[in-house]
């Protein structure tokens, strides 16, 4: 939430700002934390037409993401080709939402200069940006140069049947999206690689056997034999997956040095309770029994806690594959 909103920032007077054609004021008002207000401002800016262009393009450099999003929305409404170079630059914005909206805007403006920078956006690591780029390219009547590009396009649109029909040439596109953050997308890519059934998919499938998602790993196992990978090699490939097991030695040392933290490290909620009780007890014993007696009493207890944490960590069941 915006700090100014917390302080009860006043809702911007959109009608007044629009009447005065106060572009700078409207741009600033895009920071107001209400999507409906932001959308309303973007529409007003869009209705100002080409006279707002220069100021809007300049404001695209603002740090606040909400401002950039609002301006791109306005530029989409204005549809002035002078915005194309600035929007192309925005395709490399750090925010995936801004990149996505920039791709959509370029499609809406429909200028053919956008084709060249939109094609690499089909390889963006974010599925929304890829979808926006594919959508925009379709609007500009772009034709893929070859089957590999065509596969990137259909993968961006998530038209999986079309991707599958491309066959072997779709392997680079499908391998690329195996790095997507959405495990459902990764699962789908693995499934299609299996259906294509070409040995060239082997590195991608072996890579996916070590995926963080158990469902992606399972799909990779099912797809591997179809691509000619011998089943016998799969268990080793799967052994590379991120392990969720905890180190007993760390748990033990932690429990000895900071009693309770070893338990907290292995996910036991009561670890922090022991930690707090230990602090209180130490202060109390220290005050009433003196320093030497405190150490003599607590040291064996800490040792026991360390040994206990070590053994329970060691005996913790392994999570399912």
């Amino acid at each position, binding site marked *: 939430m915006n700090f100014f909103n917390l302080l009860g920032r006043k809702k911007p007077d959109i009608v007044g700002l629009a009447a005065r054609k106060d572009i700078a004021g409207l741009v600033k008002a895009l920071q107001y934390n209400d999507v409906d207000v932001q959308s309303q401002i973007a529409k007003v800016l869009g209705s100002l037409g080409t006279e707002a262009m220069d100021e809007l393009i300049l404001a695209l450099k603002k740090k606040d993401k909400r401002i950039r999003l609002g301006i791109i929305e306005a530029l989409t409404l204005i549809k002035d080709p002078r915005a194309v170079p600035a929007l192309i630059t925005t395709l490399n914005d750090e925010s995936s939402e801004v990149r996505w909206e920039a791709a959509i805007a370029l499609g809406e403006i429909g200028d053919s200069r956008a084709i060249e920078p939109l094609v690499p956006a089909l390889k963006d690591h974010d599925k929304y940006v890829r979808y926006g780029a594919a959508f925009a390219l379709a609007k500009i009547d772009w034709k893929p140069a070859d089957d590999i590009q065509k596969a990137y396009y259909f993968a961006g649109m998530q038209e999986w049947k079309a991707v599958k029909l491309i066959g072997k040439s779709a392997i680079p596109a499908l391998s690329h999206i195996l790095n997507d953050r959405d495990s459902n997308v990764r699962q789908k890519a693995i499934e299609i690689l299996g259906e294509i059934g070409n040995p060239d998919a082997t590195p991608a499938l072996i890579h996916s056997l070590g995926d963080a998602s*158990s*469902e992606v790993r*399972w799909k990779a*196992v*099912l797809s591997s*034999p179809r691509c000619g990978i011998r*089943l*016998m*090699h*799969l*268990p*080793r490939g*799967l*052994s*590379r997956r991120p392990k969720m097991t905890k180190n007993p030695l760390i748990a033990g040392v932690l429990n000895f040095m900071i009693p309770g933290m070893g338990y907290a490290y292995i996910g036991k*909620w*009561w670890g*922090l*309770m022991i930690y*707090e*009780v230990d*602090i*209180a007890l130490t*202060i*109390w014993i220290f*005050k*009433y029994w003196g320093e030497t007696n405190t150490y003599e009493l607590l040291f064996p207890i800490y040792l026991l806690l360390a040994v206990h944490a070590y053994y329970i960590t060691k005996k913790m069941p*392994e999570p*399912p*594959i």
Partner: protein
Amino acid sequence: MSLGWFLARGKPDISALRQARDIRRLILLLNHGDFDVQWHAARALGTMGADATLPLIHVLGHPGINTRLGAIEALGAIRDPRAIEALAALLASHETSELRWAAALALGEIGDKTGTPALLSALRDDDRYVRYGAAKALEQVGWSAETDQDRAYYSIALQDWDAIKKLGKPATGPLIDLLKERHPAIRAQIVEILGTIGGDEAKKCCERVLRDPDGDVRWRAVLSSRRCGVPISVLPLQISRRQRTGPSAIGASILNFFFLGIGYDFAGKWWGLLILETYMMLLTLAQLELGPFMPFLIFYPVTALFAFQTYFMIQREAEMAG
């Protein structure tokens, strides 16, 4: 001296070891830190023939999982029937499902029918990888199902749901047995098929699954129950008896009574720790001032109120979660 040179120097020359037939060192490399070295060492061992069988069987008891996986892989490649007994024993009893899976696949690679009984038992394993590996291995040893029950277990292992539906009633027993599966997606699929097959056994089972801890599985059980003839009026009561996976309201309130804040932490509220820190600090300061016991007379009436609030908060949240 570049780091790359140093790393390259550290990599063992596996082809030289293979040519020298140095089985002992190749086995040591199965636990190497580099995944590729492990992989190539296992492959090299697989080309050593029957000479490597006994040393590889010996390391099946090694504490390192990579060594055991590599040894199983190599035994599968060597295809020496002397390994069947050790692999079957591992398949039947090892607690790590990854190793059971690899053992099943190796038995398939060896391709000897002696391993069939162990593989048939593995079709009933509670892990989908082991079942799948066993079904694929049975194909490799040329096994074909003689009974409907075996056919059902085999089809479930391959997740060939259409084949299971076609099998009908004989599949009911194996489907119910494999509801022990840990992955909710498979339990949900099983309960859906039970609904399609129907019958008394399936009906009883659907009633049981209505108490599954997973929401999706319970929902599929609701839909299947109707198809199995379970009256819709009994469903809400059955569902209300489901296993609760959330925190215990009583547990959280008792905890909050004795250590204010930890009950909230137990219930998954991050700010519980903040309250606990503050409470413990205040308690310790009060103890230093008033002695060890007096502060509890002041604090317990307050924490009792929080304990009540915690109990009702968790009850309400559980109701809303459904």
